[in-house]
């Protein structure tokens, strides 16, 4: 089967990558410091602290703890949360649907807005519309997420009361956080669509299509789309991963009960098993989505297939 070598190579790369990440993740939480003082009140005595440390196996050598962490992780056991007193995997997976829902809504928003506006810009480069889209896209990239979120809440939730200010209570509550989260990606996708489409429009096959009298719509949606799609798959999958992992601020502003907020709380609360678990799971998701995107591109782009 063609491409088997490629597939095996990419899979091996993914495994090495995840292993490397696990070392970094563990080392970072180890370096942050001693969680015991974050977990116990000032009223705990020195002996209590030692006992607590032993109960959490924090008194063992770092290498032994890493080995244990890895061995357990391979069996799907990411340890026990210090603060929730529940298995880490359970704590994280419980919040994952909220994050996934938000990321999906945001990426749909970003794709529709980004590809739509990018295509319109590319068709009439230099027009007033093109320049306006560019301005909005650049602002969208530059505006800090928390500011966009607070402004949207202030306008649409407090002043006009069209949406709830925060929380996860039905479809309406999804609108503002999805826009906040998806705005940056929409801007990136819009710019990307414009430039690749402009490039495609200058290619020989477009000239041929125009000469043989194909309607403009067919040129744009059939001929050019095929050319643009692989690049878009890459950019959208990259953006989607960023949305999954990067919802921290949006989730905090909108008190959205997702993984991002859990990560921040756990880091500041000393709940390191959860920090390790989330980072590891997100890294795995990142690597897998990239792998999937590569394979998809392999299928979409005949030039890649002939190269191997």
């Amino acid at each position, binding site marked *: 089967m063609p491409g088997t070598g490629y597939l095996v190579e990419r899979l091996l790369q993914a495994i090495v990558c995840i292993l490397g990440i696990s070392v970094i993740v563990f080392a970072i939480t180890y370096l*942050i*410091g*001693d*969680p015991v*003082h*974050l*977990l*116990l*009140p*000032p*009223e*705990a*005595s*020195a002996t*209590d*602290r030692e*006992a*607590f440390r032993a*109960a*959490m196996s924090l008194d063992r050598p770092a290498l032994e703890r890493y080995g244990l962490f890895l061995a357990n992780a391979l069996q799907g056991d990411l340890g026990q*949360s210090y*603060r*929730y*007193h*529940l*298995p880490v995997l359970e704590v994280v997976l*419980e*919040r994952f649907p909220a994050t996934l829902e938000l990321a999906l809504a945001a990426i749909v928003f970003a794709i529709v807005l980004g590809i739509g506006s990018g295509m319109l810009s590319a068709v009439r480069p230099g027009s007033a519309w093109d320049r306006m889209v560019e301005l909005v896209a650049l602002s969208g990239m530059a505006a800090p997420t928390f500011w966009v979120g*607070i402004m949207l*809440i*202030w306008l649409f*939730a*407090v002043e006009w*009361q069209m949406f*709830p*200010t*925060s*929380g*996860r209570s039905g479809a309406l509550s999804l609108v503002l956080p999805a826009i906040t989260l998806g705005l940056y990606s929409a801007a990136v996708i819009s710019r990307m669509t414009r430039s690749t489409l402009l490039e495609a429009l200058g290619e020989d096959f477009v000239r041929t299509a125009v000469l043989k009298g194909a309607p403009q719509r067919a040129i744009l949606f059939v001929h050019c789309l095929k050319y643009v799609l692989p690049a878009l798959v890459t950019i959208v999958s990259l953006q989607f991963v960023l949305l999954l992992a990067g919802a921290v601020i949006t989730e*905090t*502003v*909108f*008190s*959205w*009960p*997702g993984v991002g*907020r*859990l990560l921040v*709380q756990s*880091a*500041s*609360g*000393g*709940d390191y098993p959860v920090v390790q678990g989330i980072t590891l799971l997100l890294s795995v998701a990142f690597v897998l989505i990239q792998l999937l995107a590569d394979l998809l591109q392999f299928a979409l782009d005949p030039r890649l297939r002939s190269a191997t």
Partner: protein
Amino acid sequence: MKSFLQRAAFALAVSVSVAAPLVASAQPSGTLTVALPAEPATLDPHKGNTRYNYLFNSNMFEGLMVRNDKAELVPGIAESHTVSPDGLTYTFTLRKGVRFHDGSPLTAEDVKFSLERATNPATKNPLLNFIKTIDKVEILDANRIALTLKEKDAIFLKKLTFAGWIVPRAYLQQVGEEGFARRPIGTGPFRFVSRSINERIEMQANEQHWGWVPKVRTLVLRTVPEDAVRLGMLQTGEADIVAEMPPPLLDRISAIRGVKTLSHPSGEIYWLVLNIKDGAKESPLLKREVRIALNHAIDRQAIIKNVLRDQAEQIPGVLAPSVSVVDPNFKPYAYDPARARKILADAGYPNGFKIDMYGSVGRYTLDRDINLALANQLKAVGVEVNLNLWDSAKWVSDLPKKYYPMSYQAFGNTIFDPEGLMIFGVHSKAFWSFYRNENVDKLIDESLSITDQNARDAHFQKIDRAMHDDASHIFLWENKILFGIRDRVTWQPRPGDNVYKFWTASVGK
């Protein structure tokens, strides 16, 4: 302050006179939504260690002794108790007819199980230190239970209200540790309904409660970390009470129609901790005169007014006036930079000295701004402060092991007694103390055996004076927690109690 107290007294008087004739027939009604910046991670009362755990626990669970809405120490699940002459055995008679939220009756078995669970190291109870003096729990008969202590504890009952929560044995064993943390059952005024982690906890009035049936039917605790969003929720009516607002938002809250603000003394004291313990061999702070000079260098009123927007009350020592007795004639060190400079010169530092200061960012209200203000005021009298500001988590985990010559800190009141502060924050043997004074240590040791409340009050004032005279710390203030409350809500927390109790709150139209 005076007008605040007057208002509080007035509000109480009004609510009492209106409510009194209705008591017999009053049914819980309405929904009270409270927006808090954080939530309890676990709902298991023997495993949590934040203010939000304490808040949840005190509305949901009860101990043998409890704190009522005025934060007074009153019988809870036990209706009475006796103490043996040696002070080591407490015999409790259980209140009759107490039921858990699932309807099952509370038994002596539940009490024994709960206290053994709370003191078992395997439970990893962060509050173990409060009750680890419990040696054994014996059931005398169906209604009586005896606790034997390893050593005498003058305020054992106060500690029981904070760490001795009673949970249902049968239910817990049936659903398991994790199942219980997900769907807890207690005997308190509110029962658990549902939770969406990091978003909301919903509770409902326990109409079978033996004495404190809530006035509201539903209590919703929303978790909203962003201050501006809590403000928005107050404006749209999504929240009835928003808690722990940053002082700079005071004017914004006051400007909302139909909303009042409440500045609630927290019982938490703030101080600039001066390290004169083991690490401080060469430190100028070892000289008492230097510490006195630094106390004169700080303009507390300026910080309280300009940074904290009056959400704090200056204190002369370390006792919080809202929870401890403090002599009104006991005056703070006066702000007098000229005097500070003169004392420093007389002490051998005419050109001041260099010192490192470590401050947290994000741990205390406006801690970054306050650290900067304190450092600048010290610089103004010639002390060259090198201020290091660190993220809260890093700052805390390094505090016990790294040498911080000076650091801005707080110490909370959890049991309505200064013992916690003294034993864990002042005594030279304490893990969290950076102070050393044999006389103060001796006075604290003596306090441990004083049971009479008036004698305790007098004794702690004596310690407070001794620390003031020794300039043990740079004494600062007790802070106030800023609330925004919609006018339809009637609720008056007891000053100094930051474990908010909501069963006396009511909502109108």
